[in-house]
Every structure is written in C-alpha cells, then in structure tokens.
C-alpha cells in the first residue's frame, strides 16, 4: 500500500492504482470544472477525453487516469 495526498487528505492505495481510480475510490467523483464551471469527472478511462485533468505535484493538466499513484504524490482537484 502506498500513501498519496489528495486535496490535503492522505489516502492509502494499492500499488498500481491510477490517480483517477484512487480519487473515485475515495468517493471523489468530481475532479475538475468545465469551461463554464460544471463539475466533471473521468469519462473514457484511457487518456482521450481530458476530463480527468488534475494538478499533480504542482503540474497542471495531468491526466489522472493515465498516471499511476506514486508514494508521496500531491494531487489537487477542481
């Protein structure tokens, strides 16, 4: 199990879990806001729809569904 931080909360996930799966698994379905402010979450699960973009370790627009959790990772949504 590895620990990552999501919006300031520490969560524990199995190694090999994607950031998207980690966030959804915590019940956090809303990852970002659309161009007009609507809440959005992952759709395609394969890095195409761009709806799972979150900020990881300070870098914006990272695809949560295509990024594996790494110990100590800092994830910010919305």
């Amino acid at each position, binding site marked *: 199990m590895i620990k990552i931080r999501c919006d300031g909360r520490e969560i524990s996930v199995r190694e090999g879990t994607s950031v998207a799966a980690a966030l959804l698994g915590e019940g956090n379905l809303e990852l970002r806001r659309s161009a007009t402010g609507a809440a959005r979450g992952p759709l395609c699960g394969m890095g195409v729809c761009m709806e799972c973009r979150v900020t990881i370790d300070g870098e*914006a627009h990272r695809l949560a569904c295509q990024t594996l959790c790494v110990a100590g990772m800092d994830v910010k949504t919305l």
Partner: protein
Amino acid sequence: MTPSPDVIIVGAGIVGAACAYELAQAGARVEVLESGIAGGGATAAGMGHLVVLDDNEPELALTKLSVSLWHELAKTLPAAAEFWRCGTLWIAADAVELAGAKAKLDMYTRHGLAAELLDERQLYEAEPQLRAGLAGGLLAANDAVVYAPVATRFLLEQAKARVTRTTVANLDELKSGAVVCATGSLTPALIPELPIRPRKGHLAITDRYPGFARHQLVELGYLQSAHGESGESVAFNVQPRPTGQLLIGSSRQYGVDTASIDAPILSRMLERAFGYMPGLRDCRVVRTWTGFRASTPDKLPLIGKWRGNIYLATGHEGLGVTTSLGTAKILAAEILGRPSPIPPAPYRVERFHD
C-alpha cells in the same frame, strides 16, 4: 428578379466583411462571394491583435485610424467576438531596445496615443512570467485583441450582405457597379500582375493557464521580422486568450505553399518565445496551425481602384484584422466619391508602377 448588387466583394475575410459593412452603412446593396468559409482564411489563422504600428507614417496613420474604429465598433460587437483592451506590451531586451522604446513613446505621445514606459521592475510587476534580465518595455494601453472570425460574421450580418459560396475565376465577369477584390493571399490567382506574395505563418495555442500573461506581448524586434525580406524569420508574440489559453506566435516564410506544419520553424518560434517567457516550456500545446498573409513589397496594403470598376482591398500582411476597418473607410470613400479619412495615396497600387 433581384436587382444586381451595387457592390460585389470577392472574399468574405475580415477585410471583405469590413468593406461590406462600410458600404452598406452608406446605403449600398452588397453581395459577398466566398470560395470557402467566411472568416476562415488568414482571418481565422491570425492572432487578432489590434495594434498601432509605427514603422512608417502610412502604417501609423492606417493602424491608428483603424484601432480607434475598433474601439467604436467594440460597443456593438457580440461577447463571442471577445474584444479585450488588454494593451500591447512591447518588450525591450536590452538598453538599445529600450532606447527604441523611448522613441516609440515619443511618437505615441505626439499622436495622442496612450503609452507608458516601464522600467525593469514595472515590467515584472506587469508580467511576472517574463525572464530576468530584460530592460523594460512600452505599454501601448489602447491596443486590443479580438476574435476575428466572429467579428467577421458580425460585420457581414450588420451589412445584411448576401454571402454566396462560389469561386470567382475572372473579376471581369462580375456585373455590378463596383467589384472589390479582398482575396488576401489568394489574390495572385485573380490578378497575377499585383505584387502580392503569400507569407506563411505558424501559431500554437496552449491549454488553460489563467493569469500567466496579462497583455499582448511583442518583442521590439518584431518589426525586423515583419518588415524584413528574409526567407524565414520568427519573432516573440504571446497573447493571453479570455479562456486562459496562451496564443504563441509568430513566424514568417516566403515561397512555401503547403499549409502543413513546418517542424523546424515551429521549433524556432517556440524557442524564441521561451527566451522571453521560460515558463512557456511547461505549458501544454493543444493545437498548432498555419495561415498565409498577403504580403506586398513595402508591407502596406493595396487599397483603391485597380482598373475599370475593379477595386483592391488586399495585401495586408500581418495587419489585416487591425486595418480592415480603416481599409473599408478609405475604400468606401473612393467608391462613393467622398473625402478619405486619411491620405489614400500611400496605399494605391500606382506606387508600384514604374
């Protein structure tokens, strides 16, 4: 049977649309002929930067007139035209360029245009993402940006112009009081004798990084690129879009007629931008595209009568969006026999006749 139009305009880019609007305001019945998508040529490819440029008197006169017309039009433009008086921030990389900025400031002041010299500290306050070591800048506060394809549609709608999808092979076949050729880089196909050369440009747009840039940013060396005659050149231009995306330009190439992305010149253009804003390296590019400017030997447009009832409104190089409105005023004045708002001689095609 519908009466034939008073004016037929060939080309529904922003220049053609502006001419349609101006002539319609004067009561003319206008038809516009377009072979592709209205506002879909260079109008769609460019930055939509509304700027007063001062490389020479005629350019200054035309851009100054046009920018003030844009501010007037902005009062009625729809929100989707995204008109924004963000100002242009001309960047001085060193003391030499800063001296050039001071000269520009004097010119602006003489012409009653709002401008302010920024020292190094003020420059960074205005634009924190600029690299360290720059000398300062000139803020032309009255410059603006606009989303040209929407503005084009607005002008055509206001003109109540009939827009017909067709490709014109021969201007002489058009039956009308006046025919205006506003075909930009496609003009050589219609009038091969005119000294117009297509000049290819590249642009890139990033994902959303709100607040990264706050003004249209241009390096003072931009004019060397625009007015130079070299085969290939790049210059630093960055424009923040209302979405928070960053529009990065600019490049110029002669003698290339494919619209495909030229990776080496795109690289050069991006590297030049990084030289001013290193943080751009980490911004994700979402799209790249190219367009063709209509370039004349002296970089001034061709406005006015060609022969018979055929008029020109073309050859605007990188200033088509800005000077579309001024062009329309000058052209309409000639067609309608009214006084021109500024001396029209510098833009007439006769200047190229030996």
